[in-house]
């Protein structure tokens, strides 16, 4: 991770995203420019419908902007085709979601291992790496539990371990504490902050929770699609 320490990881240049057209057009994100460096923990705040998730999806190459350009490691990714985007996401981005999105039929270990399989690691190597990631996140004793047998905090930690599978330099988290109590939520946020500060990853987190703002290196707010620093 330290290799990217001085490089801009994510750069948005006058990015806009409009859903629909004509009178029914919704400008979810308008003219957003920002540069994000590695090893930092960013928080994005804003009311519902302000464009937070759209911005996250633009940064994660899940959406193409209507205007402007998205760069990852100075590579223009917003113009890439459908065939190339999955590879860009696979190599660069890990996601954490508010609803965890774990496969209910897979154990904690298998949820992480399946993502590692997807990223090219197979067999015992994938299993060992998954075990390692979950151990790193404090779930060494919950490896073989199904999501339904885990607490909310444990599920989110599995999701964090899954996001780390394949060692992506960018972690995008969408309200990861939204379904957790405040104590557990703060623990998860501290884990994310450590991932930024100790491992040099770029962590960009969307949140409503004002109690964790003190943990961020930089805070953005968005309102009606306009970003403010």
């Amino acid at each position, binding site marked *: 991770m330290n290799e990217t320490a001085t490089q801009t990881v994510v750069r948005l240049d006058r990015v806009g995203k409009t859903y629909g057209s004509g009178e029914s057009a919704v400008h979810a994100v308008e003219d957003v420019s920002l540069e994000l460096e590695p090893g930092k923990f960013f928080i994005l705040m804003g009311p519902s419908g302000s464009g937070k*998730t759209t911005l*996250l*999806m633009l940064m*994660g190459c*899940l*959406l193409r902007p209507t205007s402007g350009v998205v760069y990852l490691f100075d590579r223009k990714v917003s113009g890439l085709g459908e*065939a190339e985007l*999955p*590879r*860009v*996401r*696979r*190599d660069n*981005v*890990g*996601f954490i*979601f*508010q*609803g965890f*999105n*774990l*496969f*209910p*039929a*897979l154990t904690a270990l*298998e949820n992480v*291992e*399946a*993502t590692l*399989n*997807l*990223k090219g690691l*197979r*067999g015992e190597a*994938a299993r060992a790496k998954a075990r390692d990631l979950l151990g790193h996140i404090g779930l060494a004793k919950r490896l073989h539990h199904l999501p339904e047998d885990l607490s909310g905090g444990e599920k989110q930690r599995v999701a964090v371990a*899954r*996001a780390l*599978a*394949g060692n992506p330099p960018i972690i995008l988290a*969408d*309200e990861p504490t*939204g*379904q957790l109590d405040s104590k557990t939520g703060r623990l998860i946020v501290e884990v994310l902050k450590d991932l930024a500060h100790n491992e040099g990853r770029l962590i960009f987190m969307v949140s409503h929770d004002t109690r964790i703002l003190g943990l961020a290196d930089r805070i953005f707010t968005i309102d009606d699609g306009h970003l403010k620093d």
Partner: protein
Amino acid sequence: MVSIARKNLFHDKVRLAVALAGITFAVVLITVQVGVYLAFLANASVLIDHTEADIWITAHGLENFDFGRAFSEKKLYEVEEVPGVLWAEKYFLAFGYWKTPTGSQETVQMIGFDPETLVGAPWDIVRGNPQDVKYFNSIFYDEAETNRLGDVPIGGETEINNHRVRVVGITRGAKSFIQSPYIFTSFKNALNLSYVSKGNTVYILVKVAPGASVEAVKQRLKETVKDVDVYTSREFSKKTRDYWMINTGTGVALLSIALMGVVIGTVIVANTIYTSTTEHLKEYGTLKAVGASNWHLYKIILEQAVINSVLGFGLGMFVSYWVIQVMKRGNLQVLLPWPILAGVYVTTLLMCLGSSLLSIYKVTKIDPALVFKS
């Protein structure tokens, strides 16, 4: 490597059971119906196919073997004169009433052949000597027909058309398609037992001389012998099978039920796989978000379909085996050669893969925003 497909399938056991019940039901319907169809098909022309004649001469306008009509046996002399004919034999078929040991009556088909040449004689003998049918009113019947005819032993007597007959042998594999058991006897006995006038035959069987063309001899027979129809054995066999399977709708009915099995199975499997996919849409979306291609997701769905097909086929074969045993006890034959079983599996696989198409369409259209909704 973690098999998401396998884990998903076995996680929800109720859904798996419903899917497997659907596939099993379809497999049993397809297997049994196709098996019955094939057995019917084989039985419909069993006597033609086991006779060494190259050409069959029948009354004019005959639809199939079982409805044989009498014509003058003098035609035999005309046939024998045609160049290329090695030999010609009279062959008899007529319906009769068999008196069972309980006193009831069963319709039978009496087959009359020449006991000296044994042309058209039963081919698989369990007991007895087929030449013994030369004795007065001596007959053979098939072991598969004891349920209907009664277990009359060798040397035992009963009646056909109120004439006393004596059992001198038992055959195997000579089962009539139209459910009227075949009774084998000599041409002379069959004629005596029937209500057909003397001096008639029902068929003339022809063997073509070595080196002669069957088609050419058939053509000459058609030109020479009037008021009869002339077929090669293969043509007559096909005509008989086509009559029962196509003209009467029997084959269409049997295969329609098999097709219904495919449709029902497809609907049930499609519904369960689609529901499963819909419920796991967020997880599929998550895989897509972290870099899975559409093809990666398709593979998960298709793997589920393949597992379903293997398990459903196995269960279906198990159930079919017992269904067929029960049917055989009821004297209904089922014919299932290995290539047909392989075909049933391929059908099952295609049914399951086809059932996945809706789910594949669904994951193709996953909105990335879905994964961000709590």
